[in-house]
């Protein structure tokens, strides 16, 4: 999606309002189907039994955690380079959503870890880097809100988002670079997925559902931020400043 298309907040409000209901509806549908298939229709794993079903939440949320950070970094770059205020709003809107997905991935991962590895938590590269990812989200949000001047806050936080992006490839490739308890990539592989299609289908549906959910949510938050900014501008005019 080109930022120029939606460059002005007014135009953004118009287009986004058209996309939002569709995204919400499709997200709900996909998640419903994905959950049904994942939790009831798909086979249990021959090793893991029913605990494997955590996967249908864990994996998509982990993907979304990475996706959201990437989106945030790209928007931040857009803001810093092209001074496009909407890009900063998009990044700000994405941060808490990404943080939630990260937290969800951590929580489901821990839940899964107890039966699989016999412990809630180990300090290995994958888990640690995901925790770092969560801290980065939190740091971004804290920094953006810490300034009295929201414009400054936005700029500072954008710089941080870009710096923190180095962590994304680390999360992604940590399982390849270090041998850890966590299992290596089995879906997005060069030589094709190594996962049973009966599990792959609901997984992908869930992933699509999560993505659409993100789109719907980010639009709502962006609209709120745009409105907030307008209100502040009006207040400023009213205060005669």
């Amino acid at each position, binding site marked *: 999606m080109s930022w120029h298309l939606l460059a002005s907040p007014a135009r953004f409000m118009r287009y986004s309002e058209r996309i939002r209901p569709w995204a919400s509806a499709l997200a709900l549908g996909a998640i419903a189907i994905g959950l049904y298939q994942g939790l009831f229709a798909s086979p249990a794993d021959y090793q893991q039994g029913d605990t494997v079903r955590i996967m249908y939440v864990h994996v998509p949320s982990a993907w979304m955690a990475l996706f959201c950070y990437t989106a945030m970094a790209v928007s931040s770059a857009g803001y810093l380079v092209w001074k496009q205020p909407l890009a900063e709003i998009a990044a700000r809107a994405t941060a808490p959503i990404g943080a939630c997905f990260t937290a969800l991935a951590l929580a489901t991962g821990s839940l899964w870890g107890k039966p699989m590895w016999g412990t809630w938590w180990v300090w290995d590269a994958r888990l640690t880097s995901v925790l770092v990812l969560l801290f980065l989200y939190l740091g971004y949000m804290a920094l953006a809100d*810490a300034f009295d001047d929201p414009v400054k806050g936005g700029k500072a936080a954008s710089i941080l988002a870009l710096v*923190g992006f180095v962590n994304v490839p680390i999360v992604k490739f940590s399982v390849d670079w270090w041998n850890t308890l966590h299992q290596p990539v089995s879906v997005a592989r060069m030589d094709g997925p190594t996962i049973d299609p009966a599990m792959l289908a609901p997984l992908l549906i869930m992933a699509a559902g999560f993505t659409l959910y993100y789109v719907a949510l980010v639009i709502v938050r962006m609209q709120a931020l745009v409105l907030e900014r307008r209100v502040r501008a009006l207040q400023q005019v009213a205060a005669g400043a």
Partner: protein
Amino acid sequence: MIGTFAAIVGRDVTLAVRRGGDAATVVAFFVVVVTLFPFGVGPEPNLLARIAPGVLWVAALLAATLSLDRVFRADLEDGSLELLALAPCPLVVTVLAKVLAHWLTTGLPLLLAAPVLAILLNLPWDGFEALIGALALGTPSLSLIGAVGAALTLGVRRAGVLVALLVLPLAVPVLTFGVAAIEAALTGQTAAPHLMILSGFLLGALALAPWAAAAAVRLALD
């Protein structure tokens, strides 16, 4: 530009040495943190040796994190930072000079103190080479990352928490690989791959951090 760079490094080092608040503290701090452990954990040689790499690295990380904040902030508060930003050289150069000065007054002394402290903690001889190599590669990264955090929080109300929150996630990899390098050496493996990663990290930080920090400093001067 090289003249400017040297001038800033020289001044910051002088200030750190004179003021003490920054330079000698760091070593004192480092020494104290490390020597506190035998008190805190008990003097069992094996246990100390076991935790030595971790203690040394955590202490180094803390020393770096705690000291850079002041370098920028003191200059911001007394008006020096705006004059530095007005100097006819790119702000990145200034930032890099400040980072170098910071490293010279924290990382380097730390590097020199580390072997002594390692003896104190009973670290086996096998680990010394890796310890020094890892610190030599890791401490500059810490200074660089710390500079970004310090600069980003210059304009902020709740600076303190933020610095920790911003810097430490980024510093954790340095810590983990620094420790891993030493432990590899202790268990008879080669520390090389870990040191390679630390070098990669340093190069990455060197390429990114000064720009980010310079941008953040500009923001604070507004």
